[in-house]
């Protein structure tokens, strides 16, 4: 009897070891970059493969690495977890600094272990400077160096996206969009905030970053609301209005779900020529090191992109129960995969910037970096060339050097084109905003804001025509889908 017992114990041990194996490490990551990624079979190892980079920060004189045609410098340092950068129409730059809200309920033993592991990758330790603020950076003489710096807003509730139009500054906090009276050129806001609309917030608020973009018609704001879970494991009740991009009327605050099934969308930005909304999305984890590729996609009004029931169209996620084949059938496959677990959080188009020819007609994407694989992916800024309003070609690593062996000096988040036409990168782990400019020193003739309203766009092909068709009487079926559970 006891011999059998020992044999059984041994067999279980071997089984556990086999299950921990991460599989072949020779998977070519680039096969998951582009419009048609290779999607291996999902695997659910007993222990999720995890590799986190300890954050060590930048030493004096250290910078990220850029190709020869570019030059990199620290635009602003000593920030407190800068997440996004936003250029106002006059060329002033807003840096949104924030930390995630705390107090998330932890329903499973796993959540405690996960929280502890994730805290290792956040760096810092000890006394942390006050975060949750918006800082204004002004480059008066347009030489690529910040001449004035002032904290515009402090004590916010985990802000992420900002937008400005017509004397009003909009800030997307973790659970609402607020508006402050603010005139360009001022170094402080001109009054008390007003709530434009509440957004799905706590107490869970798992993917808390609410990104914001102003529509080309300047009438609507578009705000991203990430999911409350990895793959709906907190129940669909927790996902009402989430994993979606909302369209919010600037004047009235009236809002609707513009597109859904987007697990954690960020980097909202309108294509300067086509006027189409684009976003980068963090896809789900724990299906193996090479699933599911994160992506960049144009966003269709009323479009449903699969989460949680499927990914890349009809690839069903069996973890979500009960299954919803009718939702899977509607799921739109995204435009461009960025490869798995790179965690894209920022996106900026380069048309009209002062970037060299090789980077002047496409998009930069900031990749925060992976945790759910045994070797790193992401931790860099890539450039994807565009043609005729769509991605055309392989992504190219442009800004690297955020990793140093198994340690991270910084991690890129939001990206934007500054008032001189150079690329800015918010580095939340390195507490720095980096500026990447053309090495030949070219600058744009005049500043272009991050949000370009239609009048400012150069001959937009679709500027005239009927009003946005989103006001149709029947909401698309996907609008209410996330709230439904039989």
């Amino acid at each position: 009897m006891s011999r059998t017992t020992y044999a059984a114990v041994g067999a279980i041990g071997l089984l556990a070891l086999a299950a921990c194996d991460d599989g072949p490490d020779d998977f070519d990551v680039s096969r998951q970059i582009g419009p048609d990624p290779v999607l291996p079979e999902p695997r659910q190892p007993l222990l999720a493969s995890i590799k986190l980079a300890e954050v060590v920060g930048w030493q004096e004189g250290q910078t990220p690495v850029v190709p020869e045609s570019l030059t990199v410098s620290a635009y602003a340092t000593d920030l407190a977890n800068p997440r996004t950068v936003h250029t106002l129409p006059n060329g002033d730059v807003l840096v949104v600094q924030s930390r995630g809200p705390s107090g998330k309920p932890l329903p499973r033993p796993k959540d405690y272990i996960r929280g502890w592991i994730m805290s290792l990758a956040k760096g810092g330790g000890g006394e942390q400077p006050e975060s949750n603020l918006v800082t204004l950076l002004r480059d008066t003489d347009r030489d690529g160096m910040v001449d004035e710096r002032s904290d515009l807003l402090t004590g916010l509730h985990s802000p992420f996206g900002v937008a400005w139009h017509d004397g009003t500054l909009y800030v997307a906090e973790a659970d609402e969009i607020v508006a402050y009276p603010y005139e360009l050129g001022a170094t402080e806001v001109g009054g008390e905030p007003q709530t434009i609309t509440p957004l799905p917030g706590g107490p869970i608020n798992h993917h808390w970053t609410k990104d914001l973009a102003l529509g080309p018609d300047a009438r609507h704001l578009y705000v991203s609301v990430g999911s409350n879970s990895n793959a709906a494991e907190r129940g669909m009740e927790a996902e009402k209005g989430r994993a979606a991009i909302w369209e919010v009327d600037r004047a009235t605050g009236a809002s609707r779900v513009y597109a859904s099934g987007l697990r954690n969308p960020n980097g909202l930005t309108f294509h300067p020529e086509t006027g189409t909304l684009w976003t980068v999305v963090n896809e789900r984890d724990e299906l193996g090191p090479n699933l599911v590729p994160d992506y960049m996609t144009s966003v269709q009004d009323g479009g449903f992109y699969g989460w949680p029931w499927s990914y890349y169209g009809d690839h069903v996620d069996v973890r979500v129960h009960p299954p919803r084949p009718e939702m899977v059938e509607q799921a739109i496959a995204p435009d461009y995969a960025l490869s798995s677990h790179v965690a894209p959080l920022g996106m900026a188009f380069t048309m009209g910037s002062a970037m060299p020819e090789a980077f002047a007609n496409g998009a930069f994407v900031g990749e925060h970096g992976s945790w759910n694989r045994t070797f790193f992916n992401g931790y860099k800024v890539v450039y994807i060339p565009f043609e005729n309003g769509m991605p055309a070609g392989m992504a190219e690593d442009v800004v690297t050097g955020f990793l140093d062996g198994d340690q991270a000096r910084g991690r890129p988040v939001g990206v934007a084109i500054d008032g001189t036409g150079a690329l800015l990168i918010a580095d939340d782990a390195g507490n720095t905003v980096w500026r990447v400019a053309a090495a030949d020193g070219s600058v744009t003739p005049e500043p272009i804001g991050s949000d370009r309203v239609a009048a400012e766009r150069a001959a937009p092909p679709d500027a005239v025509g009927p009003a946005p068709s989103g006001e149709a009487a029947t909401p698309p079926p996907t609008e209410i889908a996330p709230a439904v559970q039989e």
Partner: protein
Amino acid sequence: MAHARPVDGYRRERPRYADMLLATLTPFPVVCFTLALLTDLAYWRTSYLMWQHFSAWLLLVGIVVGGCALLVSIIATLTHRPGHRWSHIGLGVLVLALAFLNNLVHARDGWTAVVPSGLVLSALTVAALIASGLMRRASASSRWSS
């Protein structure tokens, strides 16, 4: 009570701390793992995630307290306390190993945290518990009868 009986002819009056401790600790894994099987069944039938959360916590508590019980058993066996045998420990290890694997499975997200492998492991854990109980009983009665 059993401890009043003369056992091996010596150490007859020695208080049996190990057995007292085990009497307190052992019910935890037995009850927790049995309930985890029931909550797994409930999740399987309802897709209601609350049951899956119950299972994960029950498995964790069962493993922690069961681990303490196993430690006490090992010490008792090493020090030749009467009625403690390596074969019992083997089964205890098997139960805890199954429950630990099961807890890893339960750490997955959603349906596959339970169906099918979590449910199967919960059932195997309970089966191993029953086997362990039967074996203890058998060895205990054979000891009294000899």
